[in-house]
């Protein structure tokens, strides 16, 4: 009369209890197995990130000096009257505009042809990867020899009667940024070539054979078949190199030009380093770091939106 049959009650509650237990088990497993990694992530990634924001609000002129909270004053200075920052921003934009496509697209093409495994591909793969095995100071010394007033580049130009094209490459305001950017391109192509080789090697050969039978040439296969198929990975590589150019490329500026002559090769990454370790204005350097963080996020979002495949 209003009392549910015994069997129906059992059938209704058993699934709910089972579901709760399963959910609990899943969450427990998640924390047990992911917890250590999450803790490490929190300590070594989240905390420094949060600290960067905090330090950017300080007037702090050296690790052993006392700090004073000055609110957003560092940002005000950054955006309203620091001409070095605006120059660095422009130089960074130029460097990314040149080096990002200048590195990734050639690497993609070279990776594709390597993946065809023509005779000698193993040797070429090693040759392409060799710049990665050189330490940054070694690469800088190599390019110093090229860029000196009596270096190899000017020597060759003179030999071919092109003396008018010789430059003091690293000390000329018109060429210093390009000279540093060329180092980035040279050092990066090989690494990404090998990455693309690894991914493109997994594309079934039957696809190429079918395309060839349809009359497509290798260039068409590359851009009309392979590129769309690997667009997601291409986007990941773009993001990786974008972040490298934003921050890591500062090492070549440090080794070759120190941002000079004047500010002609000053980039955001190097400016951050200069403020932190040379001028020792830690608070201001972290304000630059926060700006770079958001520029990095925005850039990665744009790349992701442009390269995400919609099925």
């Amino acid at each position, binding site marked *: 009369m209003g009392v549910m049959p015994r069997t129906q009650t059992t059938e209704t509650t058993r699934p709910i209890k089972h579901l709760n237990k399963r959910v609990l088990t899943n969450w427990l497993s998640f924390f047990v197995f992911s917890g250590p990694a999450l803790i490490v992530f929190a300590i070594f990634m989240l905390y420094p990130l949060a600290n960067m924001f905090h330090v950017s609000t300080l007037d702090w*002129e*050296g690790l052993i000096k006392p700090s004073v909270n000055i609110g957003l004053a560092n940002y005000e200075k950054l955006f309203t009257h*620091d001409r070095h920052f605006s120059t660095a921003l422009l130089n960074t934009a130029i460097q990314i505009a040149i080096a990002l496509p200048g590195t990734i697209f050639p690497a993609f093409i070279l990776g594709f042809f390597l993946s065809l495994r023509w005779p000698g591909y193993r040797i070429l793969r090693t040759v392409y990867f060799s710049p990665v095995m050189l330490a940054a100071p070694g690469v800088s010394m190599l390019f110093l020899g090229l860029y000196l007033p009596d270096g190899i580049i000017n020597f060759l130009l003179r030999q071919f009667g092109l003396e008018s094209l010789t430059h003091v490459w690293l000390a000329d305001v018109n060429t210093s940024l390009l000279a540093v950017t060329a180092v980035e391109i040279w050092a990066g192509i090989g690494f990404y070539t090998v990455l693309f080789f690894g991914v493109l090697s997994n594309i079934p050969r039957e696809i190429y054979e079918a395309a060839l039978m349809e009359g497509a040439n290798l260039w068409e296969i590359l851009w009309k078949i392979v590129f769309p198929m690997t667009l997601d990975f291409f986007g990941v590589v773009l993001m990786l190199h974008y972040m490298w150019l934003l921050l890591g490329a500062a090492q070549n500026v440090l080794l070759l030009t120190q941002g000079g*002559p004047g500010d002609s090769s000053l980039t955001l990454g190097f400016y951050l380093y200069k403020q932190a*370790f040379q*001028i*020792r*204005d830690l608070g201001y350097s972290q304000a630059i770091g926060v700006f770079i963080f958001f520029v990095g996020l925005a850039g990665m979002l744009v790349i992701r939106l442009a390269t995400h495949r919609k099925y």
Partner: protein
Amino acid sequence: MKNKVLASLLATLLLVIGAVPALAQDSTTISVVTNWGPDDPKGPVLQSIFDDFMAANPDITIDVDVISNDDIPTKLETSYLGGAESDIVMFNLLGPSLSWVEDGLAMPVTEYVEAWGLSDSFLPVALDQWTLDGEIAAFPLEGFNWPVWYNTTIFEEAGVDIPTTTDELLVAAEAIRAAGYQPFAIGGSDWTGVRLFQMVLASGLTQDEVASLFGEGGFSENDHAKAAVETFVELRDAGVFADSVEGLEFNTMNELFFSGEAAMMHGGAWSYGEIPEEVMDSVVLGGFPMLPDSPSAAPAWWSGFGAKGIWITRNGLEKLDAIEQLITFIYQPDMVGRFVEQAGMVPPIAGVEVDADLLNPLFVQSLSLAESDAATFVPLTELYIPGQVLPSLDSISTDIYIPGTTAEDFLAEMDSIYADYQD
């Protein structure tokens, strides 16, 4: 039998483990940070002194960490925060180190100079340079002089005399170029060019102006500074400096002069031992030609004792007895004499006797120049430049060598760096 062997081994192991801390307590380790490594003429000399000290003091070990000079301030700061800074730091008196005593990174050594019997050893001028706010900041070690080197063979071939004024320099440069040589080699892209420019600028200022302008800025409003920079720009545009000077640096500058291609160079005592003998015989040391209306009475050059000092840190104070032994050992005349004989270092102490036959001829020449009227010392600018200004000032100072840089723009740029610092 087996058990007895095992027991013996265990007992021996326990004895050794127990003895190690005891042994460690009996010996002291002094940690030293320096940039004087094997590639620096002073590096092997320093190591030989340390080796001799350790042989004479078996209970003291010296642990040397050789790193780039530019990295020493950062290393000191970061290790200080961890309580792990070296006991001794060997570094210059410029930039960041000007505030080390004030910040607690280094301990003043005034009382130790007196207590360890060194006050009569040091040259008064050396102690004066190292005295900041009434305290001796560190033990002066490396003296230097920094003259202009003139290749007399090239001058003879060009048919001109060594210039003593900038007007004569302009004439000489033209004649030297006509003879097929480069006039003045200098590293327009690095510290060598920066220091030459600052020395020339200082030669056009009074002592008070050097202290005021390099300490606080205001170059654009100072007539002497404006005149000096305008003259420097005139020299640049007239081709006094070697071709592509804005791209030259220390090594290429040396190469131009040492190969006999350039007639002049601004080189410090650290390079006396580098020049080939066949060129050395032609070299006469002197000052940079006088600017118009310069307060200097003779061509200008630099000398000082701020190139290297021995700084004692907070950790070093805990091993004061051992450090006293080390310091008094280093500053014995015969030990300092090694630096003089083998590395051409100007000694900061009196009473150093060396075998004149072992001395570098250019070094001997520089000591004679110091006692003559042929050149005059001008104030060292690095003693006044604030630590936070120094990197930016050095960075833009190379712009003066870039064709097209005007004196007015350059002076404004220098002042803006001081303005940024004061913000």
